[in-house]
């Protein structure tokens, strides 16, 4: 028998199909329908991992997504997914699983020395221990801690899986498919409402699948569940989603579901995504998330083989697995007795039922007696033995004032139950506040904040009959609230699985040396009862502080298993009632969720759109380098063979000044401003005057915000009395357009103006250099290009090579320049035509780097480089651009603010290094002294620095405090290799009188 702990019969596994898998390289078999956890248990494997901090051997504690211990890595396609819960991993042929957080092997782990050293790892040890010296943190403490603590290793390769995304709307979303969820879905579906029913498990049915003898409508509970699900699935208005976790509950009933489609399949269809994100907007939500059994906090409660009682029952009834051959059941409530009875009925020896209550219900004791089971009442577990699996447990009798030993009992598994905790995570995520229910002995949902209701065990309604009824009622109410419709649905009647009594919170009493034993509260984060008490002693009085200090409740289950026990321990230590300590908030995601499902299709080419200009293909062919400017790809420079970037830029600069250069300026923002009030609108938006600008003429426009700071600039051409062609910076296009809309719609709705973004509609080719006119002339019709008819700062419409164009005579280089605007679809034709034509004139194509150098030669600013949101027109030397007679424009009042007119502002100046070969670093600080004492504030910073072929030396611009009054003085740029001396000069380095512009 290869699976020694498999039952003879029963369970929902496919016994005919035997499946091979490996765990840490060891071959084992299981069956279809198994989880990795159930298959391991069938093979007698309890030791599956090492704990986070102390590296203690750990086993499988639960049968669900709340599993804190059994975290494994799964290999697939040569890569590994870490930290999956073995209780959720479905078995498939060839599955390869590995244990985590152990070195060199699971059975022999050198990190377990942490356990012996545990006095050095108390609560808050991160905060206390490794504080000094500072450098030790990076070099010693952190690497060692990270290596010793922690879980699985991240995968090495990019995620090769695909992830899907789907938006859905429904009338009623039911989360959880146990008895309450199924009843709610039935009742809602009956009214004709559109219903989505989701459940995180592979098979719908929830706790019904774990029932052994309970019946509904005379059928065994799992059979009734199967028939009900089939009936629901046949309805057109119902969507059933298994393997689908509702992981986030957001505002306005927006619920995110993660559907796992292929992880359970041996060889998945490559066309099917691994997971699908459902973004569901539900009119009404029914939360039927059930309840979780609480671990009992007794010494050494973490050995492999120690498990929650209901998990033991689930493994038996649902998976056909006996968790041991001799099982001790320790409990404080009734439900665990059923686990003992079910196991006994499958021939498992029950070592004892140890109930800490002095008088458990007589009915249960009678059933136990009928089966000949040993029952100990008023009895707790006070310790356990066994290294890789529990071998025996110490029992203690609760007596007046303490506990006395009641001997030890041999066992190979220990099932425990401290009672039940309603799962209020999603309710809490919906921003509802939980309330303490004394009768339930737990927090339950209070008032609904959203269109939502909880049903069944997640609100403390226990027992099969009551849960079903609660579900029906919730489904009917939800459907009525969503659609106004009702329907009469016959209720199913059930028998068995009654609600139990009992439960315990906090630590159990024991007779051991409290300073020597560990009783775990939070298994995954290795937090013990002692840690929580210590945190309180050290002054953490709020549960939020205790949580962060000890890390209790901060593991992947967010304390679903541990919170109530931790709260009780804290409350005891604080000598306060539990409800006064408060519960921490549950947050999304409900369970760990892949990054892949969030990134979804937004990766690779889809991560961020790429915007290409008409010359893109040309640049690629020519081997030009690209620069990213926002989402745009712009040509940066065109190196010829043997050239580096500096040589290429120097050559491009020289040729532009000598003959001609072609530049793709299509990325410039463009806005068409049209209407009777167009000039008035620009008059208010820009600092400059516009009303007297004649059609056919252009002007440099400077835009401020109302605080008085420069936010954008660009050349604006007037095409007609009521029509302007506005250009903006590449990066500012969207913002400028939005700002214009804002003022137009909300401040000046009386203005009769329309604005339209035309950035994408126009392609722009800029020709710059003394031969620009010769190059362009053969292709232009309808425009007199002579200097007299079409001087600098002109605009006209005509044709280029037969297609309509707007031609600007403008310059961002200081040379004679034209910019050809054509419809985007003609952009490539214009570019190809001109790039061929310039070859006849020994011209060049050039990119953004040369553009930067050429404009810096002339002292033209770039908004965002010379400015940073705190620079005024006067700071930038642009006072000339302000229309002083205008009563108002955006920023005018701001400019009069005291701080903006006060002295000591940073002003734009030129800097020349004493050594003309040295090019300064942009962003470098400017100081008066070569070696300023530490703490000396800088006088300013370098905004632009290049080697200028035109100037035959390096040039730089800088913002310097009172810079214009420092002309001729020497300042310093302190650098790691020593200060660089610079002279303050006027920021125009070439053709100061502008003769070349007007050629």
């Amino acid at each position: 028998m290869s699976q020694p702990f498999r039952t003879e019969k029963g369970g929902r596994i496919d016994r005919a199909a035997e499946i091979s898998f490996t765990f840490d390289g060891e071959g084992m078999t299981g069956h279809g329908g198994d989880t990795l956890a159930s298959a391991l248990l069938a093979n007698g494997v309890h030791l599956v991992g090492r704990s986070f901090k102390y590296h203690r051997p750990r086993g499988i504690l639960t049968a669900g997504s709340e599993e804190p211990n059994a975290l494994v890595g799964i290999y697939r396609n040569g890569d590994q997914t870490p930290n999956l819960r073995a209780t959720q991993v479905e078995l498939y042929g060839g599955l390869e699983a590995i244990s985590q957080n152990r070195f060199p092997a699971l059975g022999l782990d050198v990190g377990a020395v942490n356990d012996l050293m545990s006095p050095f790892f108390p609560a808050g040890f991160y905060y206390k221990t490794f504080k000094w010296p500072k450098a030790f943190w990076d070099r010693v403490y952190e690497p060692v801690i990270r290596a010793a603590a922690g879980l699985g290793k991240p995968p090495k390769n990019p995620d090769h899986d695909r992830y899907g995304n789907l938006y859905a709307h429904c009338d009623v979303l039911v989360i959880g498919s146990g008895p309450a969820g199924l009843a709610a879905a039935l009742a809602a579906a009956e009214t004709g409402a559109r219903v989505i029913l989701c459940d995180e498990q592979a098979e719908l049915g929830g706790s019904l699948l774990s029932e052994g003898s309970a019946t509904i409508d005379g059928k065994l509970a799992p059979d009734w569940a199967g028939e009900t699900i089939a009936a629901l699935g046949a309805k057109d208005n119902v969507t059933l989603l298994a393997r689908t976790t509702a992981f986030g509950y957001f505002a306005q009933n927006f619920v995110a579901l993660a559907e796992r489609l292929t992880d359970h399949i041996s060889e998945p269809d490559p066309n099917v995504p691994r997971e699908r994100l459902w973004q569901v907007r539900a009119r009404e939500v029914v939360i039927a998330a059930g309840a979780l059994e609480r671990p009992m906090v007794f010494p050494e409660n973490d050995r492999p083989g120690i498990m929650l009682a209901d998990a033991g029952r689930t493994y038996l009834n649902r998976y056909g697995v006996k968790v041991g051959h001799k099982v001790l059941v320790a409990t404080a409530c009734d439900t665990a007795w059923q686990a003992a009875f079910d196991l006994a009925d499958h021939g498992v020896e029950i070592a004892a039922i140890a109930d800490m209550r002095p008088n458990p219900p007589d009915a249960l004791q009678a059933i136990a007696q009928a089966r000949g089971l040993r029952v100990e009442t008023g009895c707790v577990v006070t310790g356990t033995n066994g290294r890789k699996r529990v071998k025996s447990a110490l029992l203690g009798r609760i007596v007046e004032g303490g506990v006395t030993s009641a001997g030890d009992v041999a066992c190979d598994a220990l099932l425990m139950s401290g009672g039940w905790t309603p799962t209020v995570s999603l309710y809490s995520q919906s921003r509802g506040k939980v309330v303490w229910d004394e009768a339930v002995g737990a927090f339950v949902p209070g008032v609904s904040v959203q269109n939502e209701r909880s049903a069944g065990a997640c609100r403390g309604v226990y027992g099969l009959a009551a849960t079903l009824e609660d579900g029906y009622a919730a489904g009917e109410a939800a459907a009525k609230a969503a659609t106004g419709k009702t329907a009469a649905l016959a209720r199913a009647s059930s028998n068995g699985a009654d609600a139990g009594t009992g439960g315990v919170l906090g630590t159990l009493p024991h007779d051991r040396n409290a300073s020597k034993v560990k009783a775990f509260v939070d298994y995954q984060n290795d937090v013990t009862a002692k840690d929580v008490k210590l945190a309180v002693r050290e002054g953490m009085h709020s549960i939020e502080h205790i949580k962060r200090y000890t890390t209790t409740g901060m593991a992947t289950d967010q304390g679903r298993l541990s919170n109530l026990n931790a709260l009780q321990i804290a409350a005891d230590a604080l000598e306060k009632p539990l409800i006064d300590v408060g519960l921490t908030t549950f947050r999304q995601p409900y369970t760990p969720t892949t990054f892949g499902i969030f990134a979804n299709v937004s990766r690779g080419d889809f991560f961020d759109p790429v915007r290409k200009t008409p010359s893109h293909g040309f640049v690629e062919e020519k081997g030009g380098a690209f620069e990213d400017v926002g989402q745009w790809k712009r040509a940066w420079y065109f190196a010829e063979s043997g050239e580096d970037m500096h040589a290429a830029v120097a050559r491009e600069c020289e040729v532009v000044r000598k003959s001609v250069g072609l530049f793709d300026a299509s990325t410039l923002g463009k806005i068409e401003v049209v209407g009777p009030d167009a000039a008035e609108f620009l008059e208010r938006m820009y600092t400059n005057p516009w009303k007297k600008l004649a059609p056919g003429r252009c002007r440099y426009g400077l835009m401020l915000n109302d605080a008085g700071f420069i936010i954008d600039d660009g050349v604006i051409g007037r095409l007609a009395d009521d029509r302007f062609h506005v250009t903006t910076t590449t990066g500012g296009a969207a913002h400028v357009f939005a700002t214009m809309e804002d003022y137009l719609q909300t401040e000046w709705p009386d203005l009769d103006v329309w604005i339209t973004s035309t950035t994408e509609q126009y392609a722009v080719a800029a020709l710059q250099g003394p031969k620009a006119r010769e190059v362009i002339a053969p292709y232009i019709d309808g425009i007199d290009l002579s200097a007299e008819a079409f001087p600098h700062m002109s605009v006209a419409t005509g044709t280029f090579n037969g297609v309509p164009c707007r031609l600007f005579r403008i310059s961002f280089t200081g040379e004679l320049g034209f910019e050809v605007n054509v419809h985007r679809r003609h952009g490539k034709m214009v570019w190809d035509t001109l790039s061929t034509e310039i070859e006849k004139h020994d011209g060049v194509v050039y990119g953004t780097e040369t553009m930067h150098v050429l404009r810096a030669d002339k002292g033209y600013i770039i908004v965002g480089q010379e400015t940073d949101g705190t620079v005024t027109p006067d700071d930038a030397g642009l006072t000339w651009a302000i229309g002083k007679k205008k009563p108002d424009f955006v920023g005018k009042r701001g400019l009069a603010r005291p701080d903006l007119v006060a002295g000591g502002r940073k002003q734009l100046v030129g800097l020349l290094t004493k050594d003309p070969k040295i090019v300064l670093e942009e962003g470098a600080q400017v100081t008066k002294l070569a070696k300023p004492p530490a703490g000396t504030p800088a006088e300013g910073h370098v905004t632009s620095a290049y080697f200028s072929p035109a100037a035959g030396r390096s040039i730089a611009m800088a913002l310097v405090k009172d810079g214009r009054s420092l002309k001729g003085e020497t300042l310093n740029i302190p650098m790691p290799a020593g200060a660089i001396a610079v002279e303050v000069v006027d920021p125009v380095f070439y053709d100061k009188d502008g003769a070349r512009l007007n050629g």
Partner: protein
Amino acid sequence: MLLIHCPYCGVDRPELEFRCGGEAHIARPLHPSATTDEEWEAFLYLRTNVKGIYAERWRHIHGCGRFFNAVRDTVSDKFLTVYKAGEPKPDLDALARDAQKGETGK
């Protein structure tokens, strides 16, 4: 993700289509030059930034493009009402009371 009602389009659309534009009903002074430094500072920078019922500007930027105003509870993130630009500021206290009534009536 919030659903926001655009009073111009007349439909609920996802938050992704909108951009928040800060506190509403802060009009740019008609004659900025006539304002004192304190008044101009208040216009530029001072916002009520309440925890609770707040009137703010939204723009349906990826839809009709229009600016409108909305009253939102900054605690619950619930929109209490939306209205077109230029319409008067509603009585926030009355809206808060109505919202409270709806809450307890549930």
